[in-house]
């Protein structure tokens, strides 16, 4: 159902695109994300791309987790 793994757009056609998930490829509809560019990542649900992944936000999430972890570690040290 809900695939959390982002798929990379490798070829954009008119209403569809070929996407790659770690080397496996499939074709999805891009009607809901018409502005997507090749090279960007999308979230796919039931054969349709629903959202373009903002990589900066994704990176920021990781930084946030690390910050939380580091804050904890320094507390424990004290």
């Amino acid at each position, binding site marked *: *159902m*809900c695939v*959390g*793994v*982002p798929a*990379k757009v490798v070829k954009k056609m008119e209403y569809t695109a070929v996407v790659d998930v*770690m080397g496996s490829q499939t074709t*999805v*509809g891009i*009607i*809901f*994300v*018409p502005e997507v560019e090749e090279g960007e*990542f999308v*979230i796919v*649900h*039931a*054969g*349709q791309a*629903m*959202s373009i*992944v*903002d*990589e900066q*936000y*994704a*990176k*920021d*999430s*990781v930084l*946030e*987790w*690390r910050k*939380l*972890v580091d804050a*904890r*570690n320094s507390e424990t040290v004290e």
Partner: protein
Amino acid sequence: MLEILKQSNDPGICMPLVEAVLEKAKEFQKKFGRKPAFMEVCGSHTMALAKTGVKQCLKADVNLISGPGCPVCVTDQKSIDAMIALSDEDNRIICTFGDMMRVPGSNKTLLDKKIAGSDIRVVYSPIDTVTIAEENPDKEVIFLGVGFETTIPILTLMVGEAKKRGISNFSIWMTTKLVEPVLRYLLEAGDVKLDGFILPGHVSIVLGESSYNYLVEEYNMSGSITGFETAELLSTIYKLIDLALQEKTAIENNYSSVVSESGNKVAKQWMETYLTTCDEAWRGIGVIPNSGLDLKKEYDLYNAKKRFKVEVGEPRKTKCRCGEVIRGLISPSECHLFGKACQPLNPIGPCMVSAEGSCAAYYQYMRESL
């Protein structure tokens, strides 16, 4: 992107996150004299929380309650029976998502019907149904339209495609559900004490962060939108506990890489063009007004409920407690049938057999006896 994904499940990040959540939870218990309680309302979250082990790790200190997250499970039995009965006519092809196949009807399952000769097909991408209709002009091709707001726009795409290709032997049996009405129902019923919601990942892509403001404004309830990876789930639970400790309520977007403030405008536009609100019957609840979406009158041609009459009697009574499970009133293991009379291979209710069902998640991922 792959690097980011790896880190979402990296023990170096996730194990300290678990400790951080447990610590916060203990702080909460000290302050309020009870464990914090959160409900997830997305079937994929139910599965992810169980599969990643997050639910088990936090068990002693955080109460994670599964809510009405699985669209098949919240569909009431009479609707399920009607969908199965659709396959009785000879000149029909029924197309459906995979997990509808083994949902128990009062009589048979779709799989039983398929084995007996009905033409029932599982489609991974619903829009393929339109192609099936094109290739079988002498048959009536009906798609079983079960789903929340992630799936609903895709159903409208199918109608658009059928219109474009001039296909008239295609229709959808609309039995869709909306998240907001059922959350309001749960909050108004007040049966389960909650400190916040873990808000759906992909439904939120369509609806947008701001669509949940009513939770804060009208019910003083927090929510955090999140994805499906271990670190995402843990950090969301952390944030929800933290908000509660500060006695604040807010809607947090912990999935901002993918969920925006206002959602997917294109998807919303498609829904507005083709659909109108309708009453829907929910398992264990009954009819909630304006809790579903149906095709507008001008699209009656594609509306299977308008085109085909299906007669089903009252559903067979069983001891199934799915209706209570989906409202978070009981956990799957509290149902007497769980794991005994009701198992994935011979389910009594949909929760045990749906890919996103709470009982299925529990059975597959949480029955460990160590």
